[in-house]
């Protein structure tokens, strides 16, 4: 397939409150093309919209504007039960949010895939004690080598989180301040003053030592 595997086109999500005086309480915009056969790391402060972004990418949370295209197909027009054949969200069970459905499935398009093209891992539980990390990282590599797009969201609180990001990711997204900023590599990520601020001085120093 030519062209990007995942495209976010004029994507926007806003949450607001108040009926008479509507106040926007959350806004996230993204314009992005991601090719397959790579692993992308996602970081950003709590509440910045990482999970919302993942939910829009996997078709569970409808954007306020814009489109999410997976292999050229608008995921929000694919049958609900088949959207995870295009992009699948591996979340922690407590994070699963339910969203209302807009159209009956028979009016929607089939996914046309049997195994997901895009795999989004939302803060996978990495525990260095039990050793599963190694198998998970191997799995990410296998998915990538199979031409899939792997997106891993991590909240770095320990050195090995940074180590994992540096070791496996071929690009980064920083979600913050209502937008998504792309960085080509780990060193580039650490130049961004907002990233340094988010990581804090201790983690930034550790990250620089790894870079």
């Amino acid at each position, binding site marked *: 397939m030519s062209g990007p595997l995942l495209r976010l086109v004029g994507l926007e999500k806003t949450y607001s409150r108040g009926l008479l005086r509507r106040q926007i309480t959350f806004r996230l915009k993204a314009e992005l093309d991601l090719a397959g056969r790579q692993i992308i790391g996602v970081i950003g402060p709590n509440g910045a919209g990482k999970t919302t972004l993942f939910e829009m990418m996997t078709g569970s949370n409808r954007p306020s504007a814009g489109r999410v295209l997976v292999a050229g197909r608008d995921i929000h027009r694919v049958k609900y039960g088949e959207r995870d054949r295009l992009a699948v969200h591996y979340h922690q069970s407590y994070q699963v949010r339910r969203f209302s459905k807009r159209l009956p499935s028979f009016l929607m398009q089939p996914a046309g895939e049997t195994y997901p093209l895009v795999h989004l891992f939302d803060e996978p539980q990495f525990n*260095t004690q039990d050793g*599963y990390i190694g*198998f998970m990282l191997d799995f990410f590599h296998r998915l990538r080598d199979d031409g899939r797009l792997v997106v891993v969201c991590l909240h770095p609180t320990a050195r090995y989180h940074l180590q994992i990001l540096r070791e496996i990711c071929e690009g980064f997204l920083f979600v913050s301040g209502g937008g998504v900023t792309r960085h080509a590599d780990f060193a580039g990520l650490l130049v961004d003053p907002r990233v340094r601020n988010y990581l804090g001085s201790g983690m930034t120093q550790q990250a620089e030592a790894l870079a």
Partner: protein
Amino acid sequence: MSALFEADRLQMRFGNRIVLEDITLRFGPGELCGIMGPNGAGKTTCFNVLTGRYRPSRGQVRLDGEDITGLRPHEIARKGVSRSFQIMNLFNDFTARDNIVTALPGLRRRGFDVSHAVAANSAFADQAEVLLERVGLAGKGGVLARSLSYGDRRALEIGVALAAAPRILFLDEPTSGLGSDGTARLAALIGSLKGQLTIVIIEHDMRFLFSLADRISVIHWGQVLAQGTPQMLRDNEWVRNSNLGKLQ
């Protein structure tokens, strides 16, 4: 080696939620296989599909080449597939011996007339005694299941599962709730059964599996992340580091 039990590209959906994405497993005759994975990985769901509790959304389960996908649990059990559960299933008010006797296939065929005179039937009692001895409970046949120690109850569960003379035995987290002594005893018991039948163990405790299993499948996110001998899996850098405790 031709497999005794095969699961081919199993997928399990509950509504829009995918619990097993793609599971392919092979268990050979007499092999002791481990299924390992973090909490919520889909291990128990996988067992439930393999033993007929759930019908998979896609894929096939075969026993000795025969397609058993979608058969009822008791039909699968009758073909020689036994299982234990993470939460124990014993008749607490029965003696250890009667717990085993009720599971003997000969009795099942005659009908369920447990409360009377079953233990008096010496042929069954003898069979039960052999099984009790096999699981290290010799001399404890007359003890009520509820009065047995936790470790003994785990052993009795295995005895109950063995009573049906299965060709393949599935054990769901047999060490759960056991301390280190109990775990060691259970490892010895399972080790003593090794080679007599195919045994598949779901286990969270890596060390337990690594010491016992011929082959291990690591399951997470409803998929098989890795497969191989304990030695092969140990070669993974992160596993080595975790065992040596190099990383904090």
